[in-house]
């Protein structure tokens, strides 16, 4: 059973299309991430699911129940969804316990208390029931927010950039925590972010959004290794384009030599561009300048390795190299491209 289905959803604001014919399915207990740059329509999509904005066209099903189309509109308070926000949106005038209990209508006082205690235990904030939100750290506030959103057992959880206000040091710890909590409670979730690191760490399935549409949907690994468009490829990681001619199903000729693909592709055209990510490149010392050598522009120490900035085919790229192999600025290095699952694009 799907927890959420968006069918052909469109939304215009002041004659500008924010969402265009968007389709998305979230399976039961699945965490789907809408990933994209700001302005791509991901937050609006979330609001349309919640019922805070009304889509101009298309259908929204939550737990197979139609909540929005041309003739139907179920108000947000009747959709049984949980929401988490970038600014936590905890009610500043209520204690932690009252915040968590806010959505628990139609429950006796003792039942309510019991549920609040359960949720506090789940998010490991047992001692904080009587505190006010401003007395908590950002991470604690977000844990209260998840407890509050899950307390009334929503059919679907919506998370709007919930980690962007959290210190980087604790961010991934919190992400793991919240993911554990969501999985533990067996609830489906739609998560919106512009950070691919958060998306990779948090979601089961990624949907990269571009200009109001889903550009590609799949597991993080699928999208990273086999993006279907330049937009997806670029958004998921830095890289450079090299002009390439198809030699065989697994070989491409570039100005840095022949690039080998680990799997065979069949292309309709002979020439296009390869998208090469930094970890596909190796740097080796060069004594004489030739076509495949470049100069080291800068060097950065990151602990386990050095990161060198070089210019390849007029595009800057940062390549990591082991500590044992150290170069100085202005040193000549030879670029080699390792065999990998290539990303070959025929469009310019």
């Amino acid at each position, binding site marked *: 059973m799907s927890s959420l289905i968006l069918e052909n959803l469109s939304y215009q604001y002041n004659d500008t299309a924010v969402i265009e014919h968007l389709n998305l399915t979230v399976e039961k207990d699945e965490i789907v991430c809408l990933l994209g740059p700001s302005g791509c329509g991901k937050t609006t999509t979330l*609001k349309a699911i*919640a*019922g*805070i*904005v*009304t*889509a*101009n066209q298309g259908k929204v099903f939550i737990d197979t129940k139609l909540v*929005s*189309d*041309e*003739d*139907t*509109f179920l*108000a*947000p*308070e*009747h*959709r*049984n*969804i*949980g*929401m988490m*926000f*970038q*600014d936590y*949106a905890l*009610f*500043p*005038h209520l204690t932690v316990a009252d915040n968590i209990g*806010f*959505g628990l*209508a139609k429950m006796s006082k003792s039942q309510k208390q019991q549920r609040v205690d359960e949720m506090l235990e789940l998010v490991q904030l047992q001692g904080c029931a009587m505190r006010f*939100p*401003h007395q908590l750290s950002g991470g604690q506030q977000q844990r209260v927010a998840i407890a*509050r*959103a899950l307390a*009334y057992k*929503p059919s679907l959880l*919506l998370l*709007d950039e919930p980690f962007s206000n959290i210190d980087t040091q604790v961010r991934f710890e919190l992400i793991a925590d919240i993911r554990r909590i969501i999985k533990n409670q067996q609830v489906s979730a739609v998560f919106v972010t512009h950070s691919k690191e958060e998306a990779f760490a948090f979601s089961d399935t990624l949907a990269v959004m571009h200009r109001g549409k889903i550009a590609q949907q799949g597991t993080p690994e699928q999208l990273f290794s086999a993006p279907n468009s330049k937009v997806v490829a670029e958004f998921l990681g830095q890289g450079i384009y090299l002009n390439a001619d198809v030699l065989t199903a697994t070989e491409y000729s570039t100005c840095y030599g022949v690039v080998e693909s680990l799997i065979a592709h069949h292309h309709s055209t002979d020439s296009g561009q390869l998208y090469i990510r930094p970890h596909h490149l190796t740097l080796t010392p060069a004594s004489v300048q030739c076509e495949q050598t470049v100069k080291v522009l800068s060097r950065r120490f990151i602990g386990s390795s050095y990161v060198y900035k070089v210019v390849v085919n007029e595009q800057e790229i940062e390549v990591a190299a082991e500590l044992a192999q150290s170069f100085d600025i202005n040193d000549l290095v030879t670029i080699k491209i390792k065999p990998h699952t290539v990303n070959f694009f025929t469009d310019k």
Partner: protein
Amino acid sequence: MSFQSPLSRWQLFAWVIGLTLVTPLCFLLFESLQGDSDVFSHLWNTVLWDYTRNTLVLIVGVCVVSCALALPLAWLTAYCSFPGRKQFEWALMLPLAMPTYIIAYVYTDLFDYAGPIQIALRNWFAWQSPDDYWFFDIRTLPGAIMMIALVLYPYLYLIFKTALREQSFKLVQASQGMGLSPLQSFYRVSLPLARGAIVAGLTLISMETMADFATVNYFSVSTLTTAVYDTWLGYYSLTAAAKISGIMLLILFLALMVERFSRRKQAVFERQSGVNSETLYSLKGKAAWSATLFCCAVLFFAFVLPVAVLINYAFAYAEQAWNDAFFLYAWQSFKVAGIVCVITIILSLLVVFYQRISTQQYSLVPGRLASTGYALPGTVLAIAALLPLTLLDDRLNTWLEPFGAVPGLLLSGTLFAIIFAYVVRFYAIAHGAVEASFMRISPSLDMASQSMGKSYGQTLRKVHIPLLRRGILTAGLLVFIECMKELPAALLLRPFNFETLATHVFQYVSDEQLELASISALAIVVVGLVPLYFVNRSMEQHS
């Protein structure tokens, strides 16, 4: 697709409120478009331009003087520590309780030829007659500007100080890190950030100034307000009075446009609990004492001195001024102010809440309509309110006559008229304060509440109202004090045998016998202080 039903109830509330409160104005406009305006064309050809100019000079003058007083006072008390800061923080609001006509009377009495100051100067320098020396005449336009500004500056002070308090100190600290002096960071960071608050404060002050009747009447400075009063009482020409009001509406419209324009992109949603309780700068030595002296001086002239004079009168004329009537008038004033206060807050909450939940472009219209009454000077408002009420009374009597009931002047001849007129007049104050507080609540709180199954009404009750408490208190305070001090509308609308403290005092002021009503005058001031105390206490608890 459209889904309107939960919204439509709020939409209905808002529109009914907006249309009801704008009804007197509509009647007035309709009346002003009726023919026969010989009186108006006569005025137009003779003195109207002078009246208009006086009104504009008065407004600009009061705004300038209010800025000169309120901005430094707010900055000092919000950001600096100096001797007496905590006391000044609330004490500087005290002049809000002082009606302009009382302060005007007191200063006239002090600075007159026969007043103690000129007498002392004559004795000191052995001057014999007015030809021997020059002394300023307080009963002039600049004098009126000073009097009104002394009483109205706390609006700007209160609003601007709250805005400064809610600004993050980090912004100022960051600007100082970039090499700005405290004064520079005030001009380049704090002031622009609080621009919306300043304009809101000045708009309030402008509207109040334009509506002032008692001071300019007492000083014989002819403004549009006195022109309306004279036209009505002198010529009995409601049409001409309505036409003059039209000019005032134009000025108001401009002021409101300026306010909206300055706030057009200020929907900055501040993070919760951003109130600073500590100060930023600790003033030492000369600077500290100068700050204290400045606060003392303003407080002295705007409040302490006039009150001292009133107390002096009260003791000297205790027997004549102390009587049963006084208690009755006090209770009547309090009752009217309290009822109006509650009604305006409820109405403004409903209208502003509709503005918040609606995405329709015209959702701001009901609030604008409802707020127009504030512009109407008390005199004009009284006439405007009577027009629909007498019509309704008339209809009511006609309908009920067959059933043998004759309700009489049920609406226009009772407290209903005065309360209706006050609500129309002071709604804008409550609306402004409530709207400003609403804007500080992050919209994600609304979404969170809705996602947890709460309807609009539940969200308003459980989330917004508790968070708006401070804004509601400010709104209530401002409306309450205005009601206590409101004079011209009360003069015209009070039921038979009904006096408020204000009408009582003004009669004695007009007769140059304030001494005899000094206790009532003091009572207006003291009653105005009560809500100040509660608001101040609540603000302290909160921060």
